[in-house]
């Protein structure tokens, strides 16, 4: 288990004072929670293996309140953990024993829908799906669609730079956000971006996106809206092996087609999903692709026939195209329910999230099978095949002593393997607590320090979400130092022009 920083006894000792101080800031008497029963609701996020009651939870209702809470906590030297809907799978919203948990659930209004500029301005607690729901009847939608989209909030999406099944064509959160309003730990409200494109100076919005709540508290988001495509279809393509499915994915992209979504499931995931929601998946295949195309009918027909040819040449044994919108949704229902489907056949599971260069898929799958045997734990794979984002689900039983630890080791081995083949630790779930201690696998000590210097620019006292992302907390003063060997270096002997 990853260890969180030790609680500060001085902060714990003044808990009652802090509660009183926060009550002065927050108008609603129910906005400050200090009783165990109330705090229990916040003890974990989607990474439920880690639990911790926060010292205090606050549910502000205005920006002014957030600003004052942050300033107050900064003055009192109290750490703050921001939280949206708490759906993080990496422990990004895991509370701290000596910290204030800042819930943003009450910021759930859509402030403005601006079709002239094809954007919407929303509060951070609005769910991802609610944005699309608000504009759907006018023929628009918000593209990033993480599987948790019913529950996850846009503020959390910014913090994690969330993806989804349509990233390949439409990008991640970072590619679909135009503006962010944020409050710094010092209580200052700043606007980054807006309804225009690109940054006038450094792209601060770009680094805030995906910063896992370590740089500021998001209070408003301007997202790009897209016109819903005229037509959407999905194909199910089954293969006798994962290698063939992987090859097919490469060839589709290599032929110049960028599908709206391209997902892959292995035998275990196919069976679990089919049993759970009867999506119509073939059960006699080792790997299944779901390929979604969108656009005008002529384009879809053109690309569909090209894909069928490619799939056939790669050895596909099943090719099934959705004949109705209902059937398309059914194809996806299985994939989208893959996690709960696995949850049904195993007491517990842990979802990993590495990304690999797609060409490495056969090697990674083979190695994963070896690891599965080694640890004696089963693994099911769902895979954002188009962009190489792998979601192995490791099945375990937390009631069996040692199983969780074994699962965590197995997971760490998978992620190390991803890095080893040229990939990364996390494609869309974030580092959080879960992968914090693996950061050294991907970054040198100097690189990690350089990243922490960025935090120093936003939050020099390290009050926001400490203990997440970085395995070692450095003080900003220490990070700022530079060692120069004055006069010891000769004039560089390099070619001139």
């Amino acid at each position: 288990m990853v260890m969180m920083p030790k609680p500060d006894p001085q902060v714990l000792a003044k808990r009652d004072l802090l509660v009183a101080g926060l009550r002065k800031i927050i108008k609603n008497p129910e906005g400050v929670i200090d009783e165990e029963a109330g705090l229990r609701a916040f003890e974990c996020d989607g990474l439920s293996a880690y639990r911790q009651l926060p010292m205090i939870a606050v549910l502000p209702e205005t920006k002014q309140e957030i600003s004052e809470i942050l300033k107050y906590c900064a003055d009192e030297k109290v750490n703050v953990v921001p939280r949206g809907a708490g759906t993080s799978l990496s422990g990004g919203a895991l509370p701290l024993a000596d910290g204030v948990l800042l819930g943003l659930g009450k910021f759930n209004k859509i402030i403005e829908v601006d079709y002239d500029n094809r954007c919407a301005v929303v509060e951070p607690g609005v769910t991802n799906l609610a944005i699309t729901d608000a504009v759907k009847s006018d023929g628009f939608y918000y593209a990033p669609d993480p599987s948790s989209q019913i529950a996850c909030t846009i503020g959390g999406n910014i913090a994690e730079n969330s993806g989804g099944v349509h990233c390949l064509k439409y990008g991640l959160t970072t590619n679909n956000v135009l503006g962010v309003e944020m409050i710094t730990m010092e209580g200052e409200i700043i606007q980054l971006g807006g309804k225009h494109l690109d940054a006038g100076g450094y792209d601060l919005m770009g680094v805030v996106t995906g910063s896992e709540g370590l740089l500021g508290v998001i209070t408003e988001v301007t997202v790009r809206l897209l016109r819903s495509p005229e037509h959407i279809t999905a194909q199910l393509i089954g293969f006798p092996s994962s290698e063939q499915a992987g090859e097919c994915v490469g060839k589709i992209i290599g032929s110049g087609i960028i599908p709206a979504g391209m997902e892959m499931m292995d035998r275990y995931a196919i069976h679990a999903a089919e049993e759970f929601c009867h999506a119509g998946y073939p059960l006699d295949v080792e790997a299944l692709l779901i390929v979604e195309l969108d656009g005008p009918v002529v384009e879809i027909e053109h690309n569909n026939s090209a894909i069928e040819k490619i799939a056939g040449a790669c050895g596909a044994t099943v090719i099934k195209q959705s004949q109705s919108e209902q059937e398309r949704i059914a194809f996806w229902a299985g994939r989208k329910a893959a996690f709960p489907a696995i949850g049904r056949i195993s007491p517990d599971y842990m979802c990993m999230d590495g990304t690999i260069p797609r060409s490495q898929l056969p090697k990674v799958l083979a190695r994963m099978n070896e690891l599965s045997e080694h640890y004696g734990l089963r693994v099911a794979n769902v895979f954002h095949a188009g962009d190489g984002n792998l979601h192995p689900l490791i099945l375990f039983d937390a009631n069996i002593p040692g199983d969780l630890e074994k699962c965590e080791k197995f997971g760490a081995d998978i992620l190390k393997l991803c890095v080893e083949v040229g990939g990364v630790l996390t494609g869309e779930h974030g580092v959080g607590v879960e992968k914090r201690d693996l950061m050294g696998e991907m970054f040198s000590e100097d690189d990690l320090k350089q990243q922490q210097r960025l935090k120093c620019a936003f939050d020099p006292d390290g009050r926001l979400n400490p203990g997440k992302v970085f395995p070692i907390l450095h003080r900003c003063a220490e990070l700022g130092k530079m060692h120069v060997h004055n006069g010891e270096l000769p004039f560089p002997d390099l070619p001139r022009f």
Partner: protein
Amino acid sequence: MDKFNISSAEQVQEVLEWALAEKKKLSVNGAASKSSIGRPLDADAEIRLADMQGIELYEPAELVMKAKAGSRLTEITKTLDESGQQMAFSPPDYGPLLGGDAGQSTIGGIFASNLSGSTRIKAGAARDHLLGVSGFTGRAQSFQTGSRVMKNVTGYDLCKLVAGSYGTLAVCTSLTFKVLPKAVKKRTVLIYGQNPVEAVNSLRDAMSSIHEVSAAAYLPQNIANGSDIEFVSNIGGAVTAISVEGSGPSSEFRCAALCEMFKSRGQVEELHGHRSEKLWTYLANAEAFVADQSTTVWRISLPPSEASDYIKALEEQLPALEYYMDWAGGLIWVSLPSHVDQAGGNILRGNLKSGGHATLIRGSAEQRQNILPFQPQNSVLTRISESIREGFDPARILNPGRMYPY
């Protein structure tokens, strides 16, 4: 001034260590084709990365390429073209606009300036395609961020910071970026004779349609006339241009549908193939402002719906203004006579009603010294940006003062 021709990463580190030890300020360039963008530098030495060339990795099926910073954009485009691929944000070439040669741009320079062409509205900006960077910070420490995969949220996304930082944070030696299939067919629908208000409405409607418009621009009559493109230059009026691209049947269908959609708003025409390409290059590279090198040129990003009101306000306050719109109205290129007070900066920035920014792309050294070429920031953003710079380059040896005085 010492000028170093860099051809390896080790040499970059060597120069940086020397600069730190000797307290020397460095001007950092690719091929220096955009070195006149930003505040004039007071540097002791110059390093050029133009000799650091070569594609280090290219996997078309994975849509990824890695190249050394000095690799010429022309070489990269050629290699991608052979596999039917492209950099989808249509990187522009400002060489001639800035009084230099065409074809000099390096891949490092393109990303360091985060400059994107007309397809930015659909494909995203340069920054959206940058996946990984290796280089050295102003601490002379090796620096690595991102990776070669498309989906990556491991640690802060420092690629976004490096893109558009004009070499003030780190010297990039190698860049990994996303590439995309090149469309089989590109077509442009032209609508003739619209005024700015009508044009902005047409651009909005095109962008709100199901046709996945890849580029959308408005050329007032003088800009259209100067274009040297048949069906654009010779019609004696303003031209609204809307581009679609994709597979053959797809772009034909979309193009026909757009023509149908706009035929009641003015005479419509289609541009195919070479002419269509030429039009968008003309706009992306601001070729309209190349011939007269004496003018001051600005690039203004604003909410697209405000473009026509913005232009109306400018025309009242800056009568000698020449302009055109790209990015469906979200980008306005402005050219002004050099004698205009403050190079027009106060007026151009003062009229941005709800956000946006104006960047001086071409101006005399004196103008670039006296007015901020990059959008001025409030005190909090200045503090944060300055601290970021402090973290990367505490001795301010990299392009000192190029973006802002700090």
